[in-house]
């Protein structure tokens, strides 16, 4: 799976206002909602479940990145999450994500996956971590200052496996 298969580029938040993880998660989910990816009236509920999951165990994996995510039950005709959907949020100031290495998080990749498609979730995560694993990619992502920069970087990463 490639970034372009599941990342909603128009929902990128190039500069998160929040300094805490709950606020950051809320901003990114809201941005996905504004992009029309979540169906009507689900924004708050999805925010709630992502934060609940995050509190169970931090997805701040260290090295300045966090990957909050949730598997969401598809309620027929109500929730539009039928495929994995993701959005990127960046913070130049850094967010306290209770990360494993206790360091601030600068790049957040938030994923919402349909609960009945566990394999798709794993494939999207594989793609995310294959790139986050690379120091160069983490550095470039952190340096992005606009949604366009993020889109360019992710599309380049889709073409270039060494990024």
């Amino acid at each position, binding site marked *: 799976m490639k970034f372009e298969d599941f990342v909603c580029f128009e929902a990128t938040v190039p500069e998160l206002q929040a300094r805490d993880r709950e606020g950051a998660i809320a901003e990114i989910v809201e941005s996905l909602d504004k992009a029309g990816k979540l169906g009507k009236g689900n924004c708050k509920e999805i925010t709630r479940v992502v934060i609940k999951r995050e509190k169970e165990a931090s997805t701040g994996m260290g090295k300045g990145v966090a990957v909050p995510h949730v598997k969401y039950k598809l309620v027929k005709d109500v929730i539009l999450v039928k495929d994995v959907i993701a959005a990127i949020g960046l913070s130049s100031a850094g967010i306290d994500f209770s990360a494993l290495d206790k360091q601030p998080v600068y790049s957040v990749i938030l994923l919402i996956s349909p609960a009945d498609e566990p394999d798709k*979730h794993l494939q999207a995560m594989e793609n995310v971590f294959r790139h986050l694993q690379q120091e160069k990619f983490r550095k470039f992502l952190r340096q992005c200052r606009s949604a366009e920069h993020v889109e360019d970087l992710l599309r380049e990463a889709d073409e270039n496996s060494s990024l």
Partner: protein
Amino acid sequence: MQAEQDSLEKVVCETEVEIKNADGLHMRPAMQFVDIANQFKSDITVSNNETEVDGKSIMQMSMLAATCGTKLKIKAEGSDAQKVISALRELVEEKLFGEPPP
């Protein structure tokens, strides 16, 4: 399971395990795996057919995309290699990471 002994200190053990919980090796199971792996001195590598990763790194373990039914090779090298293999096999194949089968 194969065990090969070079000397008293350097033991290499390998085994193959199958992911049997429905949701596969997503982040929470991967965390459990890494937590157990880090309790041992041995170097631990985990591989599917394509990728070999460090069994003590959560980021690398998340790269395996091991869905239910995937077979993974676990290799441990060090004085406690045998214990590593039995602890990880138990987590994956007997406890199913505390998750339901399909």
